[in-house]
């Protein structure tokens, strides 16, 4: 069974540019989560999808971040325009049911210069 995959693995962009991160959850997992770890800090929750619906987006930092999950399969997280403080590792995770094990993807390492 394939795990959670994320693309790209690394992204280096300039301040003000746009970046789109993609996450493919484990097949059949209705629950998809985005997390972020900024350098030196803890991993922070961004949002939670159940199928195509946003269940909880309380962790989204501001309106420069837009997450979508059209069709309830893969998800994208767009940052527009990117700021220096957006640099970090963005993890996606998926689970079969809420409160069950969350399986994390390898992450996308974003560097905003």
């Amino acid at each position, binding site marked *: 069974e394939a795990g959670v995959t994320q693309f790209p693995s690394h992204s280096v962009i300039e301040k003000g540019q746009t970046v789109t991160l993609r996450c493919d959850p484990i097949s059949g997992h209705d*629950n998809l*989560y985005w*997390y972020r770890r900024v350098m030196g*800090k*803890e*991993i*922070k*929750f961004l949002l*939670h999808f159940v199928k195509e619906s946003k*269940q*909880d987006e*309380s*962790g989204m930092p501001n309106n420069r971040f837009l997450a979508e999950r059209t069709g309830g399969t893969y998800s994208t997280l767009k940052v527009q325009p990117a700021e220096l403080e957006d640099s970090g590792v963005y*993890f996606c*995770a998926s*689970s079969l049911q*809420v*409160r069950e*094990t*969350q*399986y*994390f*993807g*390898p*992450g996308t390492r974003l560097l905003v210069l």
Partner: protein
Amino acid sequence: GQQVMQIPQYQHVQEGEDFTTYCNSSTTLSNIQWYKQRPGGHPVFLIQLVKSGEVKKQKRLTFQFGEAKKNSSLHITATQTTDVGTYFCAPDLWGKLIFGQGTELSVKP
């Protein structure tokens, strides 16, 4: 909002020594999960605790959930170099994992 404090932040041990990391919350938790992240890797689920006073073992790893469900610990007996990484506790609030700061373990051979 919900927060968990994890100590110590760093731990350096000699291979063969024991290691313990502690996780504390100011509020009662319904459950707590533990994750391990290897350097450059991603969090990998280790275990979930839900019952007051629960103790679970995985080979050399022992996980405990406090009686009041406000604290948890992970103890590794006789550390090995393969144990290197950062260990996170994370209560699950209906899908939202609240990660502690993590304890970074280094093991000297």
